[in-house]
């Protein structure tokens, strides 16, 4: 049939020039944006390079032995027979992190369950910003709080507590600091769980408690675990509060009533004083920073991995 119109009967179309697939200004902009994005990689690489090259200088000093660094028991930098072992500082950091985790993780999780399952809308609208308020207080002020409010209070109840610096108040204050983080991230994870799962559970006769603990929490487990790891990594990297609360003496003991220096506290206190470039003491700063960097990086990557690998997508 006559399906094709004759070209003379078609409306006259002025043909557009072909659109340029490559414009130099667009290409320049894309590379400028890439450069600034690449800066973030540059930051990580630079930190790693500075810290590890300092560590290399530290270990190439003949008075420092790698074996003692990881297995020894004393950190007596600055003295005649200086001994450098990371264990006292590591113990200090781990003690604070453990106390903070034991206090904040369960409490944060239960608060998150309350916020996502039990609280009604107005209460939630009031509580979430208040929790974020806790997170917005600067860490120095938490340190002040630890030294002048918590330590005296603990001193009344716990015999043998060091009245000036102790790990326990450091741990408590870091717990208060990471609580909003755990609660907020866990609540986000639990909110992702679709309501149909909860409703199915209720339909089968479960109580709210059983639904929350046996259905919602396991469903949001990846997000909750990731929040736990991020919170612990924050507790490990915390500086100002623990420096004020725990003091600056590296000791190797498991008694939380004493005050041990943490890795971060050590770095802060040494950097405050006048340390010569190139001395062993100065390089020890890098070694401690390297351990800190590796530990926090490992925890963060583990958290990211858990989050992406085990995230259950409900669609």
């Amino acid at each position, binding site marked *: 049939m006559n399906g094709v119109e004759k070209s003379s009967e078609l409306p006259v179309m002025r043909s557009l020039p072909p659109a340029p697939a490559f414009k130099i200004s667009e290409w320049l902009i894309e590379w400028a944006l890439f450069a600034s994005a690449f800066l973030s990689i540059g930051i990580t690489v630079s930190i790693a390079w500075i810290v590890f090259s300092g560590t290399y200088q530290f270990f190439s000093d003949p008075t420092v032995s790698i074996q003692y660094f990881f297995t020894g028991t004393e950190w007596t930098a600055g003295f005649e027979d200086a001994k450098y072992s990371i264990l006292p500082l590591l113990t200090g950091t781990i003690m604070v992190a453990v106390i903070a985790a034991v206090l904040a993780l369960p409490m944060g999780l239960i608060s998150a369950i309350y916020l996502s399952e039990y609280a009604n809308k107005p209460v939630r609208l009031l509580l979430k910003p208040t929790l974020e308020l806790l997170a917005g207080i*600067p860490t120095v002020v938490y*340190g002040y*709080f630890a030294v002048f409010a918590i330590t005296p209070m603990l001193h009344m109840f716990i015999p043998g507590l060091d009245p000036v610096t102790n790990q326990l108040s450091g741990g408590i204050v870091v717990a208060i600091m990471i609580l909003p983080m755990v609660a907020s991230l866990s609540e986000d994870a639990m909110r992702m769980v679709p309501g149909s799962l909860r409703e199915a559970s209720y339909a089968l006769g479960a*109580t709210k408690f059983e639904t929350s*603990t046996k259905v919602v929490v396991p469903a949001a487990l990846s997000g909750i675990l990731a929040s736990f790891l991020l919170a612990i990594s924050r507790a490990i990297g915390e500086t100002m509060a623990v420096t004020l609360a725990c003091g600056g003496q590296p000791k190797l003991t498991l008694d939380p009533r004493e005050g041990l220096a943490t890795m971060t506290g050590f770095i802060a206190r040494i950097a405050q004083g006048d340390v010569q470039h190139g001395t062993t003491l100065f390089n020890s700063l*890098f070694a401690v920073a390297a351990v*800190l960097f590796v530990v926090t990086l490992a925890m963060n990557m583990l958290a990211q991995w858990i989050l992406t690998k085990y995230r259950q997508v409900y669609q």
Partner: protein
Amino acid sequence: MTEARKNHQGEGLSLGRKIADHGFAWLAFGCTFMALALLLLFFLRLGIDVNSWFKLMPERIAKFNIEIERRVQDFDAETNKEIANLTKEKETRIQQDPANAASLATRYDKVIAKKIEDRVQTKREIESNMNTDKRSDFSYIGMLWHFISAGPSSQPQDSGIQAALLSSLLLGAITICAAIPLGVATAIYLEEYRAQSWVGSILQLNINNLAGVPSIMYAILGAYVFVELIFKPFESPAIAARNTLGGGLTLALLVLPVIIVSTQEAIRAVPISLRHASLALGASRWQTIWKIVLPSSLPGILTGMILALSRAMGEAAPLVLFGAALYVNFSPTLFSRFTALPMQIYSWSDDPDPAFHYNAALASAILITVLLGLNSIAIFFRYFVQQKLKG
């Protein structure tokens, strides 16, 4: 047959399950409100200490005023003693050597006159200093104003946060000016250009890791790059090596992940239909981003900026390592040494003199007020944006 089949209807929950349910509800309630109670306890403690500051300072100021006056009196007493000694010496010498009595007398008189002139001059200086050191304003507002406008001093009642506050504001401004362009550019790159590629995932992974790096690491980086590499070669009386610009840039690196993540979320919230419409109308990719996507996500970007600013102003650890001074008596400029309000709080809390602890409390209260103000603006902004997107 029907008896064999137990009818479970109407049995309800077992006691154990009921107790568990109610108990857990109370536990959950308790945990959440424990967090609030801690917040309340914190503000209570801060309030008590600030109150103590207002109660303690007037008597310390009065005591110090009395001490200043006593210093003047002691000075007068000393002057009189010295004049008396010289006069006695004069008379002894004249007694020993009566032949030269006249010349000795003239010489000694000249010495005594000069001494009196010197002492009067010095006393005038002391008195003028005294009038500036002596404080008469015992009202709460007056003391508070003095606290905000004075620099640090060895006397707790005279110490103020002026240098620290100005430094913190200057640092915050530098941080924002440096971090916003870089952060927004990175976020745009990640969201618009490389959303699905492996390059994008590596960059994203890196940014998530940077968000978790302890703040001291940034100081180590900043101290090396900005102090050793960049500013030390230019060190001069006008340009300090550990200057405010370097400190601000270090803080900018610290808050970069915060800005990137919040800008990414803001850009992600822009509906894709807007982008498609723009591209369909013939706009290039960058035109779409610059004229359509960015203006739509501007409130989210501003929220991220305020959160980053409040984080930067609250950090002390990286500045301690970077080399911020703890005793800065002058107004900081771009290339001078600097301090920061959190650092001032830290050094006052660490001070053995307990009076400084009250200073730390008041400074903390001021810092928290400023940061709470900023955070409230951010929260209000977010609410405003949500309402706008809904309507």
